[in-house]
Every structure is written in C-alpha cells, then in structure tokens.
C-alpha cells in the first residue's frame, strides 16, 4: 500500500515543482508581507490591540498562511483532472481506489509542509528557536493542518463540476478562513467585535475553531511572551484534519468511480 501511495506523492511533487516560478513569486509576496507590511503595521498598532510588535506577531501567521495556500493547490489539480477526465488514466493505475485517494490527500499536505518550511525557518530566525519537543509538536500540528486543508480542497474540487463553481467556493472558503482567523490580528479583537455586536457570532466561533488560528497561536505560545499554550488547539486541529481527510477520501473515491 505504501509503495503505491509513495508513487502518487512523487507524481504530485513533480507537478508541484513544475510551478517553481509561481512558487518563487508566492514566497516573494509572503516575504514582502513580512518585511514591508508587517514592519509598517508595527508603527500603527493601537495599545488596545494587545500587540507590541506586529512583525513578531505576524511571522507565525505567515508560515501558516503559506502552508494553507500551498496545501490548497492540490484541489485545483484534482478539479482540472476531473474536468479533463484524467481520472480514466488514474483508474488504470495498478493501485486501489483507497490508495489513490489517501495518496492525493497526503501529497497535498506534504507539499504544503515543504513550501511552508522556509517561512517557518524565517519565523524561528527572528523570533527564536523552540525547544525540541515544542518543535516536534509544531511540525506535527502543522502537518495535520496541512492534511485537513488538502482534504478540504479535494472535497471541494470533486464536489464542483465547473471551474467557475470551484473558484467561487474556493474564494469563499479561502478568504473566510484567512481573514476570520488570528493570522493577521489577535483573536481577542474578533471576540471583542462579536461582543459589541459588530461581528456575527458565527464568524467569531469560526475564528476560534479555525485551524489557522489554532496553529498560529500555538507557535506564538512557544515563541512569544504573553501567549499561553492551550491543549484544545491540538484537539481542534485533529478534529479538522480527521473530518476533512475522511471527507476527501470518500468524496474522491465516490466521484472517481462514478465518473469511471
């Protein structure tokens, strides 16, 4: 089973690195966000925001956004394969449907981890390195986040028949998860807006259980003072990962068989 999955992972990694220029562009944008935008925002922070340095606050969030964007890319490929009926070729491969589905989800997650690693290293260089157990926990949590995102992206990709629908769904999910999280601003601000009735409570809850919030805050709790580690973040990430990994596997197997 592992051999077939590894072949798929290799196939998807080759595809991933075909977009090397695109990836370089994306990393440049991420770094511009950190070294320009975050530095400027540091000079505009309100004392009520609870942040003294936006650069150090944003660096962990940036690694998580990089992970999110790159792990999400697998969905676009799967959607394209579905529309171009590449699944006929996929079905002819000497592997089971389960191996095929697991392999796609896993490769999406691993690609996210590879892309994110220079951003995480940048974060460590400027914020300081965590202890070995903390580092291993960060990697494990980020891997599960990446798996969940990859699963979410594949679930959406196989559930939408046209590119327009996929792009619309992707845009909605992408930006809701991105901006409704503690990646760019502290969770306390979103909760405060919710208490004042300026932000719907459903979005406040989304921000609280958002895996991007949980992963960013976990890294902050290890590297920055004033952030306390919360075990519920891990449970939340595991639940997200399990739900969307299984959804993607079932949806992918169902659609590929139906189409075949």
């Amino acid at each position, binding site marked *: 089973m592992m051999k077939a999955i590894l072949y798929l992972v290799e196939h998807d990694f080759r595809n991933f690195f075909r977009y090397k220029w695109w990836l370089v562009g994306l990393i440049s944008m991420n770094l*511009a966000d950190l070294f320009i935008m975050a530095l400027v*925002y540091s*000079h505009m922070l309100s004392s009520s925001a609870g942040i003294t340095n936006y650069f150090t606050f944003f660096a962990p969030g940036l690694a998580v956004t990089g992970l999110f964007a790159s792990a999400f890319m697998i969905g676009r490929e799967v959607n394209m394969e579905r529309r171009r009926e590449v699944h006929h070729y996929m079905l002819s491969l000497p592997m089971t449907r389960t191996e095929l589905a697991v392999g796609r989800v896993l490769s999406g997650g691993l690609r996210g981890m590879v892309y994110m690693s220079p951003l995480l290293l940048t974060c460590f260089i400027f914020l300081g390195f965590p202890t070995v157990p903390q580092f291993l926990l960060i990697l494990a949590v980020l891997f599960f986040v990446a798996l969940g995102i990859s699963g979410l992206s594949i679930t959406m990709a196989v559930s939408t028949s046209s590119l327009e629908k996929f792009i619309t769904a992707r845009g909605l999910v992408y930006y809701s998860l991105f901006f409704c999280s503690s990646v760019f601003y502290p969770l306390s601000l979103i909760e405060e807006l919710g208490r004042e009735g300026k932000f719907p409570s459903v979005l406040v809850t989304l921000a609280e259980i958002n895996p991007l919030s949980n992963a960013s805050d976990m890294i902050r709790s290890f590297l920055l003072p004033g952030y306390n580690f919360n075990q519920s973040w891990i449970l939340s990430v595991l639940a997200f990962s399990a739900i969307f990994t299984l959804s993607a596997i079932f949806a992918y197997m169902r659609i590929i068989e139906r189409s075949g």
Partner: protein
Amino acid sequence: MVVERDVRLFFQYKFLIIMRAIWFVSQIALFGLIASRMVNVSVHPLAAGSIKLEPYQTYTFQANITSDLNLLSIDTSSAQGYGNVYIYSPNGTLVQNGHFSGPNNSSLRFDFNNTESGAWSVEFVAVDVADSYSFKAYGPTDYFRYYVGGLSVMTLYSAAIFIGFDIYEEAEHGVFEYLLSLPVSRRQLVLGRSIGGGLRAFIYVGPLIGVSLYVIGSLNPLAFLVSLLALFLFSFGVSGMSITIAVIIKSSDRFDIFMGVLDALLVRLSTAMYPLAVVQATNPVYAGITSFNPLTYASDLFRWGTGITSIITLDNPFLPLVGIIAFFAFFTFVGVVLYDRRIEGGGWQ
C-alpha cells in the same frame, strides 16, 4: 474594435471576476473591519510643542484639544538622560504617565478613546541632563474608510495588469498572426490594447468603487471627477506597463514571477494600505520608493476625491496627478514602440 475585443475577452474570464469580487468583499467585511480595530494611525495633528529643559526642570504644555484626542506621541529622540511624562485631562486628573531613558527610548505613545475636549496638560520632568523634548497630539482617524479607498485602487491595478496574460494566451494559441492580419496598424493595435486593458479593468472595478463610496460615505463631486480621471489614466498606464513587460520578457513563466514580485512590492510600498507618514517612520528607504509609486498617487487622489482628508498627507493634488499622467504617457509610448518592434519574430515561451 481592438478595445471592444479586449473588453469582451476579459468578461469571459468569469473565474477571475468572481475571485476578485470575493476578495474585495472579504477584504472590506473581514480584514478592513478587524484591522481598523487593531491600528491607530497618527497623522492628523491636533496640537504640538517642543522645549529644551535644564536638569531637574519641569515644564507643562497646555494643549487645547477641541475634538477627540486619540493619541499623544512624545518625541525624546534627542534626550540623553532620564525623564518622566505626565498627562492630565482638562479636569486635572492624571490620565497616563510614562518614563523615558535616553535615546534608546526615542518616543512614547499614549492611546486614548472618547476623551473630553478642553485644555490637556502634558508635563515633562527632566531628571539629570539638559535635553530637548517635543510632543504631538493627534485626533482620531478612521482606518477602515482609509483602507477601503486603497482597496479600490489595488483591485483596479490587479485587473488592469491582466492584459499581459492575454498576450501570452494569444501567443500560445497563435492568435498573433490573426491580429497582425487585421486592417489596423501596429500602433493602433497596441494603443487599442492599452486602452482596452484599462477600460475593462475600470468597467470591472466600477461597481466595486460604488461599494467603496457607499462604505466611505462622503464625496466631493468636483474632486471626485478629477480623481476618476486620474484612475482612468492610472488604469491605462498599468495596462501599458503590463504589455510592455510582457513583450520584453516573452516568457509566460518569467512574466508570472516578475509580475508577482512587482505586485508584492508596488502594493506594499504604496499608500494603498497605510499613510506615507507611517512608512516614513518605519523606513526612509521604503518611504522614498512609496513617494514615487503610481499606486500611491492613485490611492491618494482617490481618497482626496472621496473626501477622506483626515488621514492623507496630500498637500497638493496637482503633483500626484502629474505623476499619473507621466506614468500613463511613459508606458503607453514605450508600450507602443516595443509592441511594434517585438510583436513579430517569435521567441515566445
């Protein structure tokens, strides 16, 4: 005809239109709203003062604040010694205080919310060395409205840039030969493409600008017309720039990366997201680039046109207007010349 073709072509990219619209709305409803709670922009001065104090001397500034006080910034960059700052409200209550220790602590800032109007007192106490001190008091600024104004210009920029990707599509599918066979000159073709690229971006962003105006909630009609004209020229200029870069690079991969990096730098080193005074405080090199960025000119003019004057540092709208005209003229001219010379001969990757 060329313009009409480009406009029609653009609206076939439904996914791009959908994605940009979702991005725009989520930027306003989520990022803009929450980030405006996080930041406190200090560029709208209410009062200021400076003094040189002898050791152990005390001096109290009286700042007559007629509207809401939002922030007090204390500059102690020339101070070599130690000292304290005490801030008293008009009714004599000590509201905030701070301690500074020489040049390592070059500024202190105190944020306020819903303060009372009247004579505020800012008391400086120098401890051991004769130094110069200054303070500035700032009024509240609405970052949300500021951000929404910049967002419209960012969206216009990213829509106008798309014409360069069309050129690669045409090269890949052999449409160039068809275009060259049309009964129009090369110059008409590239001028039409530049205008078409700008116009379609403007048509697309029009409703989004409408949303921005609704959110911003104010308008100076004459200034707005001028700013609209500036946005037109900006849009054509960006299209011309995209065409120019596309025909120089002739490789879709390299174009993709180049435009990605350019986009990252142009947007972030502009006043689309933050005021120039803050960029200046962050890094003078960043501020130097920001000052000569067409996105800065377009953002400032749009905000000026919509009446958001409390936060921008636009003393004279004529200068950014000249900057935009120069940007438009340069890239339209260069685009015409380069497109004319390089459209034939292949080499497209």
